[in-house]
């Protein structure tokens, strides 16, 4: 297998507050290969957005990377200074934020914001600065006349598209997306996801995509990582996780969706609510809500165990590792 494009090693992020350090991301390991679509799912407060921000080096106090490395094309981003980062950021990797309404400057036209971005990150020629914004806008299916439009003149779907166009200004190798579709209606969401997938196939960039919606992940990602309480609960091929989820939390998430097709089945959901990361439960962090909880779950913190090609953090599979190492 070729060298991964991005390798995150033992990354931990804490929010440093007066009373306690809240560890929002706890020793996360993951890798993204060139051209891959990695989906990250989890509920609010599980640390998924914090993880993305940490990878993109966009954290601001009180959040801080307390340990770990983010190796992107052989370079540890954590160690780079701001000015060094400026050459990598946006040119080699870019970020699409959750709320385009808040991410775009309401006082400036779309075109002016695109040009600012180009000037800030590259010694772009005046020619490129003139022509590239129109090009990327066309790529996402927006008429270039909208370069002169202000954000409020675009619909929610178009604003998200404009954000994606902005992320593609320099044809990056990795595009990080934080819930880009969660504010959109189903039809618009569907159309945007299809477009992202098409652009990805056309340009071959890798996508890291964060969402709370399992179904979006199911249809578009190659691999999926399920996050719970700041940790990786399960990571593996999308098809295998959706066919046979291993972690009780993944199973619960899949069972929480009513279906529009097929028979009507009662939904169970997952009892309780996500834990407070300032005081995570002992042992397995999911044990208070788990339907398959065992006595040892309360005391023993599970590792990630390898089951076929899937890594899962659950003591049900602890035997697998012993079997593998024996």
């Amino acid at each position, binding site marked *: 297998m070729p060298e991964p494009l991005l390798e995150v090693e033992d990354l931990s992020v804490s929010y440093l507050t007066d009373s306690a350090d809240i560890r929002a991301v706890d020793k996360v390991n993951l890798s993204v290969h060139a051209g891959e679509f990695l989906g990250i799912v989890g509920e*609010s407060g599980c640390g998924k957005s914090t993880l993305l921000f940490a990878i993109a080096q966009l954290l601001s106090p009180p959040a801080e990377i307390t340990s770990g490395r983010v190796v992107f094309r052989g370079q540890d981003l954590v160690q780079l200074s701001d000015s060094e980062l400026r050459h990598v950021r946006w040119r080699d990797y870019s970020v699409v934020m959750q709320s385009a309404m808040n991410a775009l400057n309401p006082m400036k036209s779309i075109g002016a914001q695109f040009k600012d971005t180009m000037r800030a990150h590259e010694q772009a020629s005046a020619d490129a600065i003139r022509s590239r914004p129109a090009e990327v806008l066309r790529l996402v299916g927006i008429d270039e006349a909208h370069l002169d439009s202000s954000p409020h003149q675009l619909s929610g779907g178009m604003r998200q598209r404009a954000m994606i166009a902005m992320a593609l200004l320099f044809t990056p190798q990795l595009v990080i997306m934080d819930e880009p579709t969660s504010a959109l*209606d189903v*039809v618009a969401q*569907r159309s*945007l996801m299809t477009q992202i997938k098409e652009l990805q196939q056309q340009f071959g960039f890798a996508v890291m995509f964060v969402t709370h919606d399992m179904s*979006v992940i199911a*249809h578009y990602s190659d691999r999926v990582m399920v996050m719970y309480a700041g940790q990786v609960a399960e990571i593996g091929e999308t098809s295998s996780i959706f066919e046979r989820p291993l972690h009780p939390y993944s199973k619960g998430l899949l069972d*929480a969706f009513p279906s*529009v097709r097929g028979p009507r089945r009662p939904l169970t*959901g997952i009892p309780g609510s996500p834990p407070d990361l300032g005081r995570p439960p002992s042992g397995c962090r999911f044990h208070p809500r788990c339907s398959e909880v065992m006595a040892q779950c309360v005391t023993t913190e599970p590792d990630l165990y390898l089951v076929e090609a899937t890594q899962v953090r659950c003591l049900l599979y602890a035997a697998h590792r012993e079997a593998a190492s024996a």
Partner: protein
Amino acid sequence: MSRSATTVGEDGAALLRTVGLTRHFRLGGLLSRRMLHAVDDLDLVINEREIVALVGESGSGKTTVARLLAMIYPPTRGEIYYHERSVHSLRSRKDVLWYRGEVPMVFQDPYSAMNPVFRVAHGVMRNLKLHRPELDRAQRREEAERVFDIVGLNPAGDMLRKFPYEMSGGQRQRVGFAQALAVRPKLILADEPVSMLDVSIRAGILNMMASLRADEGASILYITHDIASARYVADRIIVMYAGHAVEQGPTEVVLSRPKHPYTQLLLSAVPDPREKAVPVSADSGEPPRVISPGEGCRFRQRCPYAIDKCATITPALRPMGPAHDAACHVAVADPVDGDGQSVDGIAVAARDSHVE
């Protein structure tokens, strides 16, 4: 399949119905002629012990309907009849309080719907004091504990003493339902009650809504953009598009034999983690602008089946099958023998691409 009559019975048994309900908002200054048509000519029927889902995308007017029904603002035109009594004619404070107690609303955002400086008991107790003045202090407390128990907030005594910030989103939404229940409602207007909640706790709220109908006998108008959750709880579904009801009928009928091209589009876009993605239409999902619209079907610009007539005549709801109506010039009704085999091109194509 459906547990109750799906249209107003001959005996006029509808709990609530609207006739030509319309609400426009003026855009710009007082003299502006630009009118936003949020809801146009809506005839809606909700029967006793019925869960009706009002489904549509943002901007379709579904929240405006809830607010009209909750008397948050008056309609531009049209009437609301509750137990055949015109809501418009309710003038005295006593009558308005009575109606609001019978038809309470649960809001979308449980984080902003509660006063953060009061314990959650405050809202419930205040509701009781206002709407059920016959209860004394101890009885109010008892009643508050009873409704907290019903919505699954136990132990009720402890829960009542909590502040909103001490509760999770799901718990707060349950408080919202408890407040509504405390006034012995006949119809709960639930405006997107699960859309702000995490997926793992949505199922609990949906199940609770189903049991409120079963155990408390309340009807629910469930407003949502999520057609899958509508299917899960509702007997009947009404699809709104750009201020118009475009299709209505028993949930399973509408979802298995959608007649309106918009309903078909909506269904094809619903993702399902257990299913392979169905092929995508080229539709970009752009919502329509309903500012001073003229005649004609509001879906026509996005509609693959649009004909000339669609631009000139606004389609009205017409029967497609038993209790199943759609507002479309092109859609063809099911044959009367009722074997479910539609010969209509749209419906057949829709069935093939959306089911299975």
